[in-house]
């Protein structure tokens, strides 16, 4: 058993969650005991628009295998417009990563409201599954592409 | 303007009129119906089961051929229209059906609902325009009180067919106005005539048609028009308050002055 666990790939996954909706959604997932793998670690930010693409690239450079950004649903941002900016920024960033040949499943944006504990948990399970299937992040560690 | 045209089984046999008047009217209105090669029967009813593929393929073939020609696909029969439009919607929006149908068909370029399916009436409304049609009418049916009978297949499910307001449609009434007649609106114009049930349960469909006829004549209709051979058949079986029932293309041909030509031929 323990040998198997050692051999199983355990990805490092960073989840940026906005304070108002998604972090609360994650709390609800917790209080509803909706489990998802411990590979996911959450960083609280005030709003999805606080997430600088540099944070995401930094996570990958430091060895993350997947990064997910969760924010309020469009139209529900606590700051009214933050997630709209985040949506554009992340769309362009993800498209660029795809363009240079990085697996686009390693990045994801999901809108999770404070009431969506089920969705939060389901999303994280799905995302971890995806990252496990992609395996260890090699390409994003060094975007000079000097592997 | 050229359209791919899917006549369907009945229009080449029992409902030849519907077809011939339609083609002649199209010509008079300056568009052409180009019959697609090797069309196969649509099956008459849309296969509701989400796991049925084979019964959807004949529609996909027709749709695919129209796409290859870069044309919209026009139908005249309500049933063909219903089936083909819904299969097209499946091909566009239901991944499972699209994948399996394409696997079966082995087309060069998979078909994914690219073709626009139009009913002849939609061509008149959206492409020709009822105002243009009105100008081309030479024998207006002035004074004729005509009830439009839509039935179910043209209108429902409203979201997929996107033909007209399913509960309060106007396209046939506007058509009647365009050819100079006076439309009679009655509430049962979108209730079912009984459809295929008339094969075995003749009384049931008769009673449904009676209700429709009564409602239409009660509101003053002198005749009914329809776009469906089966509706026509069933309505003609009605016993009470029997009103004459015509295909809308027949009245169209008459209004455009091409009916005699067709009748001679």
């Amino acid at each position, binding site marked *: 058993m323990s040998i198997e666990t050692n051999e199983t790939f355990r990805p490092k996954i960073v989840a940026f969650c906005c304070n108002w909706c998604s972090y609360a959604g994650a709390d609800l997932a917790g209080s509803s005991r909706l489990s998802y793998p411990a590979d996911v670690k959450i960083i609280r930010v005030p709003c999805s628009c606080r997430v600088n*693409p*540099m944070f995401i*690239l*930094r996570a990958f*450079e430091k060895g993350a295998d997947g990064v997910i950004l969760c924010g309020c649903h*469009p*139209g529900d941002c606590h700051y009214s*417009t933050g997630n*709209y*900016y985040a*949506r*554009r*920024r*992340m*769309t*362009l*960033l*993800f*498209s*660029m*990563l*795809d*363009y*240079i*040949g*990085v*697996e*686009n*499943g390693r*990045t*994801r*944006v999901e809108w999770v409201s404070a009431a969506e504990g089920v969705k939060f948990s389901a999303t994280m399970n799905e995302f971890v599954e995806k990252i496990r299937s992609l395996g260890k992040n090699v*390409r994003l*560690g*060094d*975007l*000079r*592409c*000097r*592997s | 303007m050229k359209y791919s045209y899917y006549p369907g089984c009945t229009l080449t046999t029992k409902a030849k009129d519907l077809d011939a008047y339609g083609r002649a009217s199209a010509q008079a209105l300056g568009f052409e119906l180009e019959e697609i090669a090797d069309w196969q029967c649509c099956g008459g009813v849309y296969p509701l089961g989400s796991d049925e593929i084979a019964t959807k393929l004949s529609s996909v073939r027709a749709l695919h051929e129209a796409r290859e020609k870069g044309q919209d696909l026009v139908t005249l029969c309500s049933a063909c229209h219903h089936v083909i439009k819904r299969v097209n919607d499946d091909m566009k929006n239901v991944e499972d059906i699209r994948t399996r149908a394409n696997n079966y068909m082995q087309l060069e370029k998979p078909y994914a609902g690219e073709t626009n399916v139009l009913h002849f009436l939609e061509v008149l409304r959206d492409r020709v325009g009822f105002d243009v049609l009105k100008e081309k009418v030479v024998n207006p049916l002035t004074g004729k009180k005509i009830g439009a009978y839509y039935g179910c297949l043209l209108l429902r499910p409203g979201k997929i067919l996107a033909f007209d307001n399913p509960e309060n449609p106007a396209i046939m009434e506007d058509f009647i106005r365009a050819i100079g007649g006076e439309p009679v609106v009655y509430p049962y114009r979108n209730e079912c005539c009984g459809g295929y049930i008339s094969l075995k349960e003749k009384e049931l469909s008769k009673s449904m048609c009676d209700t429709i006829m009564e409602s239409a004549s009660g509101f003053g209709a002198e005749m009914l028009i329809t776009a469906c051979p089966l509706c026509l058949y069933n309505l003609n079986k009605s016993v009470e308050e029997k009103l004459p029932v015509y295909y809308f293309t027949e009245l169209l041909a008459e209004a455009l002055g091409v009916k005699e030509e067709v009748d001679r031929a």
Partner: protein
Amino acid sequence: MQELIKRAKELLADGTVVRVLGWKAGDLPYNPEPAYFAKDTDFADFVYNGFCGANLSKYMIEASKMEGKTLVFLKPCDTYSFNQLLKEHRVEREKAYIIGVGCKGKLDIEKIKALGIKGIQSISGAELTDEAETLTVQTLYGEKTCAYKDAMLERCHVCKGKEHKIYDELLLTSRDTTDADRFAEVARIEGLSPEEKFAFFQKELGKCIRCNACRNVCPACSCRKCVFDSNKFDSSQKANADSFEEKMFHIIRAFHVAGRCTDCGECSRVCPQGIPLHLFNRKFIKDIDEFYGEYQAGEDVDADAPLTSFTFEDVEPSVVSTRS
């Protein structure tokens, strides 16, 4: 060229401007460089020919801080950069007297060399008054010729047009040099498999020596202090920051200028390693056009920039994996 000098001298003489920003001859026949001219005598080595690709807009940031007005010569594409800087309050319109100069396409010496023309002593046919159809090159090995078009910079083949977006007056006429699809190469790469894409960029970016020429020449990279040079994004250990910087430099730089880059092509022009850096910027431009509607930075000073605006119906980031 003589018209430019004449007009510059007039404007200096009547006090409209106190200095002129133009190009002066370099040590080789094909490397003129940006320079200020203040006195009549300075103009001896003023040049304006096919090799004056350098975009002078960025120099106007410094010039805007100086006393008095500066006369600046801007080619049509340069005016986009100037406009963008104006939008970002980096240059002052009142401090600039803009002469929009004509352009028949700028030349790429690497392309001439690639045509097998070596030992270059002088080049003629590159003046704006010339037909600009053929270049005649005197070399150690005799006279060689090549078609002007074949020696043009990549960016001129996808020229944004011969119209100046901002100017006080115009001199010399331009020629339309567009004969290629601006996004063809980006689209080609998009069509590759992830492995091929990665291999392509690995090969190109592997050449980077972090000389910062791209950053220094870029009119959009006009920050007083680059994020890579500040400690705002460090985690206190400089060593880490260095490796982060090393690994992510070009992507981050491209993102920082996304929506602001006018696609002036200077980054690729100055890269000593010949990395096609414009392919990053153009990818963003292509995406922005496709996702949010066509947008050309520097075209309209008052337009909303794509990354500082939004619509409620914007595409979701998942579009990246779902689009065909």
